[in-house]
């Protein structure tokens, strides 16, 4: 049985996330280390960020807000790489792969908005200055190649350099990178870096615990609504968003925030090793998480109903229907292009700036939308389309060395 790839609004999808458990973790060593701080103990040979450290990572409300801003940046930093892969697929080729990449890119935009909703939900309107925006567009735009924000350091095979996010044409290398970004965290896997998260899922896990702990603390201190004192008018709600890729959730309390994170992490990594325990199998009405969509592209095969993911680290290979992926019918975009690469060609530089102005305009629009003007999000859709057309124009311009120009996704001042 082949399963349907895109299942929007499937309530079962969120079952992919394991509930937060207050019970002791199976790997208590670092906990003992933390709790016996006064005692002189030899440090473990490799100090790992275990689930316990993740649980206590966020200490106070300002840190929680900072982490949510980082999460916003994290979601944003993955969108340009996905768009580069999508745009460089030539019209008519690799259609299945293009549809998969597109669905992921759209969901990342949704994630940005969900993170903004959580952040707004825990921000007391009295602390917001008149006209203050949720984030700073100029500083949130990453400079590619970039490490993942939020001190997320995915494990790389021995001998490979540290992971960076790159703007690349659609290629095996690009898809490999995407798989690394979205790779499910293994809760039992030891970390080589004592202070880093091993994946996006683990970072969001820390945020989940932070939300829970801060909220419980606020309630204990007599705040009826806990930390959820935000202005409901700053929430982006489903009527402000259309298209595809999951759903917008209004965040007004802890449970809403939990659901929003489940939506984000469920779409991203999907499975944290619990899939076998829950006896959830591929094809049983679950939308594929991003990691598995990229695995399908890498293998040129869809998952079939009988495919499962029984072990960590993820080794699941799709065994379903083949589909064609052309790695050659692709615009040969220069890797991580920059405006300064185009300085010797002023008309090209102007086009690249034009693209970046549209990009900045789009981010400004999103920023205003999540800063109390959610109705603006609909207007932003025109700009999103325009962004694509401007990117395609750049890709048509040869650089004379066999490569072509591409969108640089850099900050520029608007005219």
């Amino acid at each position: 049985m082949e399963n349907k790839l895109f299942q929007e609004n499937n309530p079962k999808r969120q079952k992919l996330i394991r509930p937060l458990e207050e019970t002791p973790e199976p790997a208590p060593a670092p906990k003992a280390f933390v709790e016996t701080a006064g005692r002189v103990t030899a440090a473990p040979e490799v100090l790992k960020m275990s689930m316990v450290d993740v649980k206590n990572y966020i200490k106070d409300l300002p840190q929680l807000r900072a982490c949510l801003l980082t999460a916003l940046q994290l979601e944003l930093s993955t969108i340009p790489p996905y768009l580069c892969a999508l745009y460089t697929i030539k019209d008519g080729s690799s259609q299945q792969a293009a549809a998969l990449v597109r669905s992921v890119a759209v969901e990342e935009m949704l994630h940005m908005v969900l993170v903004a909703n959580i952040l707004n939900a825990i921000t007391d309107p009295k602390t917001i200055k008149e006209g203050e925006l949720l984030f700073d567009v100029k500083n949130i735009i990453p400079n590619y190649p970039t490490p993942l924000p939020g001190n997320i350091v995915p494990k790389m095979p021995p001998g490979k350099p540290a992971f960076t996010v790159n703007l690349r044409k659609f290629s095996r290398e690009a898809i490999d990178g995407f798989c690394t970004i979205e790779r499910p965290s293994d809760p039992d896997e030891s970390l080589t870096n004592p202070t880093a998260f091993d994946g996006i899922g683990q970072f969001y896990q820390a945020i989940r615990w932070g939300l829970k702990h801060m909220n419980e603390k606020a309630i204990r201190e007599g705040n009826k609504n806990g930390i959820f004192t935000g202005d409901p008018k700053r929430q982006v709600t489903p009527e402000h968003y259309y298209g595809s890729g999951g759903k917008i959730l209004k965040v007004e309390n802890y449970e809403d925030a939990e659901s929003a994170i489940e939506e984000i992490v469920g779409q991203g990594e999907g499975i944290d090793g619990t899939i076998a325990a829950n006896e959830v199998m591929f094809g049983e009405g679950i939308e594929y998480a991003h990691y598995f969509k990229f695995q399908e592209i890498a293998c040129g095969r869809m998952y079939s109903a009988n495919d499962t993911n029984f072990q960590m680290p993820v080794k699941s290979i799709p065994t379903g229907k083949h589909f064609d992926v052309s790695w050659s019918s692709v615009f040969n975009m220069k890797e991580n292009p920059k405006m300064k690469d185009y300085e010797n060609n002023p008309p090209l530089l102007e086009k690249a700036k034009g693209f970046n102005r549209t990009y900045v305009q789009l981010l400004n629009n999103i920023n205003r939308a999540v800063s109390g003007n959610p109705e603006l999000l609909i207007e932003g859709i025109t700009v999103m389309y325009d962004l694509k057309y401007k990117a395609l124009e750049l890709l048509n311009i040869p650089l004379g060395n066999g490569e072509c120009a591409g969108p640089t996704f850099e900050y520029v001042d608007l005219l």
Partner: protein
Amino acid sequence: MINASSNVKLFLEISAFLTGFSETELKATGMLETYYNTILANTDGNDIDYFFQNVSDILSAPERTDATIEQAIAMQLIPDSCYSGLAKNIIALWYTGNWVGTVVSAASYIQGLMWEAGHTHPPGAKQPGYGSWANPPLSIVKQQN
């Protein structure tokens, strides 16, 4: 003997003068090779050879300026009697994606410069998004910071 790659280059250069769009803008349509092949396939060989010879002379004339080039184009290329009206056909080709009334390809329809020039989009392609008709085109709205 003029070789093909230099003719493509001449075609691009003269197209920029003929259309008023920069060479980079024209390349960005992705239609350069298609259009070059279109004129080769549909124009008398002598017309092509003499046309490119003439274009080469105009573009490499000593002490040329944009004004002298435009004047030479008006005198030597635009009249219907010159090269069976090739220059005018080239303008129509870039703007409409049509060669003498026949659409060249699906892509040429989408890439016609007339859509850009009119701040609009080809119906059925390059959709600007739901509700966009309620607002002025992005290309004429000043981008706000």
